[in-house]
Every structure is written in C-alpha cells, then in structure tokens.
C-alpha cells in the first residue's frame, strides 16, 4: 500500500501562485482523474505530486514520508510520471525507449540485467506494443506512441502512475483505447493511477475518484456520480449544462448548453 498525499500544498511560477494550500489524497489502488478549466492548476498539481515542480509551501508525502527528503531515484521507483513534454529522440526504437524506464533501478552505467529484459518485455506486452519493439518510435501513430510511453512508465515498476493529459492529441477511439489500457493496469496490477484529463465525460466514466478544480483549488471531489452535478460544472467551468446518465456506463454525462441552444427540461 502506497499513499501519495498533498498536505496544504502551494505551487506557483516565479512568485505567481497557481495553487494555494491544497489538500489531496490519491485513493490507493484507484483511478483518480483531475479535471478543470485551462490554467486551473491541475497539471501543476500533478507535477508537484511527482516532484517535477518545487513547492512554495506545504508538503507531499508518500506513506507519510516527505518526498523531497527522498533520493530522486528512490522516488522514481515508487512514483512514475508521464509528463506532457516527453521527447522521443529521432531514430530511437520502441524497445530501447521502454528500457529507459529501468533507469531508477540501475547503477551508473545502466547495465541491463535479465531482470530488466523481463520487465521490459512484460511492459511491451501489457501495452500491446510488443510487435512494434523494433520500430522507430517516430514512425508510429499517435495512439501507438502514447502506448509506448506508458510502457516506459510501466517498466519503471511503480505502484503509483501519474499521467499529465495522456489522451491529448488522440482521436476519440484512441482516447478510449488508452483509458481502457489504464483501467486494465489498475485492475490487473493494482496500480494507483492519477491523471489530468480534458474530456469531462471520459473522466467521469473511467475514474473511481474525480477531482474537479478551478482557480487553483478543489471545487469538489469524490465518486463521479456524486461530484459531477450541474452546480459543480457551473462553478468550475462557468458552463451551463445538463447532467444526464451515460447510457453505456451509467456515469454522469455532461451535456453543455451554450448560447444558441435552449436548455428545455
């Protein structure tokens, strides 16, 4: 059981506060989705949780221990993070990229053990990219490439995986595909998943725990069916909407109104 928790955390850029004294606990072994309007601080929060962004105040703990007191490699063996700004070097092949996820488990020169090979193979297989192992990453489609990055994070073998907008740039089919994959990881391995998502309805469908943010604070959090109400959507997004039941998953479905269509009933 590993428990990642933000305690009264403040984050910002060059003195400009984005998040003020925020508390959040990622439920262990569950999928958490963080949603909110642009610039609400959701990505910054996730980066803070992964120690990619320095805290202005408060602390982030893993099983009660302050993560800033931990060697980075040790943290990287417990918390994996896929940031938005990943770069696949030109010419790099799928298996090689995925094997770089073993870095926190290796020594100075990164000698590859048979253990590493087994982990990489499993990561490739469970993300369905094993048959692409020798292909240059640059030649893959957006959906395949994102799977490869997730395979790299899996090779890190962490109990917690954080993902910053993993479905951006993917078409709707590949968005579902990716979220299905993350669901499988969560179910099969018990991995705690937390991700920033843009698509409200997919977040509501796939998350066990939904966190709605606005202007650097949490507006509401909890089970999607409890959290995603008309009032919360209005408060967080300033958006008039109806919330109905998703006929497929039974989760709340936000239907925005807009200015040119009336909200009858």
């Amino acid at each position, binding site marked *: 059981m590993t428990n990642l928790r933000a305690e009264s955390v403040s984050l910002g850029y060059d003195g400009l506060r984005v998040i003020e004294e925020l508390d959040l606990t990622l439920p262990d072994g569950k999928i958490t989705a963080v949603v909110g309007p642009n610039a609400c601080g959701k990505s910054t929060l996730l*980066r803070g949780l*992964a*120690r*990619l962004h320095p805290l202005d105040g408060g602390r982030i703990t893993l099983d009660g221990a302050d993560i800033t007191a931990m*060697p*980075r*490699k*040790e*943290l*990287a*063996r417990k918390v*994996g*993070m*896929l*940031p*938005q*700004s*990943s*770069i*696949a*070097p*030109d*010419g*790099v*092949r799928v*298996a*090689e*990229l995925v094997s*770089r*996820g073993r*870095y*926190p488990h*290796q020594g*100075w*020169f*990164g000698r590859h053990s048979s253990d590493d090979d087994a982990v990489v193979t499993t990561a490739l*297989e*469970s*993300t*369905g*990219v*094993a*048959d*692409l*192992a*020798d292909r240059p990453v640059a030649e893959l489609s957006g959906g395949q490439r994102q799977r490869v990055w997730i395979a790299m994070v899996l090779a*890190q073998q962490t109990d917690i995986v954080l993902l910053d907008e993993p479905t951006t740039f993917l078409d709707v089919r590949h968005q579902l*595909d990716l979220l*299905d*994959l993350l669901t*499988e990881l969560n179910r*099969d391995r018990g991995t705690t998943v937390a991700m920033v998502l843009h698509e409200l309805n997919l977040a509501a469908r796939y998350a066990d725990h939904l966190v709605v943010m606005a202007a650097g604070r949490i507006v509401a959090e909890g089970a999607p069916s409890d959290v995603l109400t008309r009032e919360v959507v209005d408060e967080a997004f300033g958006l008039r909407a109806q919330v109905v039941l998703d006929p497929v998953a039974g989760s709340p479905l936000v239907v925005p109104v807009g200015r040119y269509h009336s909200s009858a009933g």
Partner: protein
Amino acid sequence: MLTSPAAAPAGRREGAEAVAHRARRRTIASATALTALLLVILASLALGVRDINPAEVWRALTAPVAGFVDHDVVLDQRLPRTIVGLAAGVALGAAGTLIQGVTRNPIADPGLLGLNSGASLAVVCAVWLFGITSPIGYVWFAFLGAAGAAAIVFSVGRGQPVRLALVGAAVTALITPLITLVLLRDQQAFNLYRFWSVGSLTGRGLDTVTALWPFIVVGVVLAAVLSHRLNMLALGDDVATALGQRVGTTRLFAAVAIVLLAGTATSLAGPIALVGLVVPHAARRLVGTDYRWIMGIGMLLGPVMLLSADVLGRLILPRAELEAGVVAALLGAPVLIAVARSKNVVGA
C-alpha cells in the same frame, strides 16, 4: 490485456533477430573505429613531406640514432603531433557528444558555447600583454579563456538549450571584436594568431600534452559516467527527472567535463572546427541512439578524423603542409551536409 492486430509471435522473433543484428553492428562499428584509429596513428608516424621508409620509422621508435635526421623527424615532429592529435581528438569527440546530448541540439559544438572565442582572446592577450609566444606558455591562457567563456555561457544560459545557444552567440559576438582590437595593435600577436586560429597539430612539443593530460583523463571519465544520463536527458528534462535523474547535477558535471575537454583540445590544437560537431553524428549513424555507444565510438572517431585531417594536410600539397584545422573543415563540411540531407537528422 489488449491484443494488437499483428501476430505477436512473428513480431517477437523478428525482434530477437533485430537485437542480435544491432549488437553485431555495434561490434563491427567498434572494431572498425579501433582499426581506423590504429591505421591513422601508423600513417601519422609514417607519412609526411619527408619520405621516410616504414622500416626506418620503426627503428626511430625502437632504437633511435641521435642526430640521424629521419629519426629526429619521426621522434621530434611526427610523434608529438600524433600524440597531440590523439589527445585533442579524443577530447573533441567526447566534448562534442556531451554538448549535443546536454543541449539536445544537433548542431551544438564547442564553438557554440563561446569556448573557441574565449580561448582565442586569452591567447592574443597573452602575446600582447606578456609577450608569451611558446605553446607551453599560452596553452594555459587558452585553457583559462575557454573555461571563462564557457563559465559565463553556462551560468547565464542556466543549462537551457536555446538560452545556451543565444548566450554563446552573444559571448562570441562580444569577444570577436576584442580579438580584432588586440590583433590591430600588436604585430606579434597577429603573427601567432594567424597560425593558431587555423587549428594545427604542429609546433607543439610533448610538454603541452604532459601539462594538460590530467584534464583529459578527468574529462573522459566524467563523459563516460554521464553518457547513460544523456540517454534520459534526451527524453526531455521532465521525463529524465521523473525517472529519478537530478537534471541540474547532470548539466553541471557535463559543463565541467565540456570545459575540461574542449578547453584542453583548443589549448592543444587551436580552435578546430567541425570535429566536435561531425563526430557524434557519424557515431550515431554507426551505433544508434544510445549515448553510451555514441560516446565510446565518438572518442575513437574524434582522433581518427583529426589525425586523418593532419595526415592528408601533409600529403595534399607538394613540399608543404595544410593545417589540420583547414583539412578537418574541408572533410567535415560534406559529412555535415550529408547529415542534413538525410531524412534521419538526429535531434538528440
């Protein structure tokens, strides 16, 4: 788990073959680079404006006869320039790989960071202000100048690739007119600079290498240790950090290694263009994207390129020599154009 459309077993078998193929390729590349290095060292000892037969070259090295001109040429001229070329070449290959890796900039080289201009300014000042004209005297100035310029560029650029390139260009732009100013005032500095600025392996005694080799050793060890970290850095600062790397520390140590290596190379051979730029690209072509291999092969190809340039420079003109720096540029430019034309320009 999700199934993928292609048949997995076939893909996997192909995978094992491809892995073996790449391993074979790396072995062949290493063997080729090592052989090329040995050949070019032999050529550098055996070939020159003066015709000396190989047997005599061997005798010069094993049982030299004092006062015999052939032996003196080998021992006092060809041997030192070979060793200078070896040292400077290894340093340039490693420094170029480090710079490109740490900045994720495929056209980064020591010149980009203002190292060459810093070294040049220090050398002309050494001549102008202190009348120092012997290599063993001005190597230290060159080294300090390179280190000073790099220190400014790295501290202002704070390790960020684009900022580093901009600050490097600014520092070079600032220093170049200062060099000109000194050259206009001092005839002696001008005379020395004409030859130094071209980049050459001649006229340096072994004492320069004896004085500077510890820097190269420390730089090479650092470069080797850092090479695996460059693999993570190539994925972006965020990914490298998320994988547990202290990116700032990596950049700091890389900066130290670059200053030691490129500073020493520039002190030894002058501002040699293109070796640090071309060698990492050539190494990538041979061994792929793993910086541990690029670094190793780069350290072999650096001296191969520099010494080949030097040897060719002795042979191109009848009874005269072209400086290694000139030939290296002539050799390097077409390689660079080929790299730019290929669809696989490697960005990191």
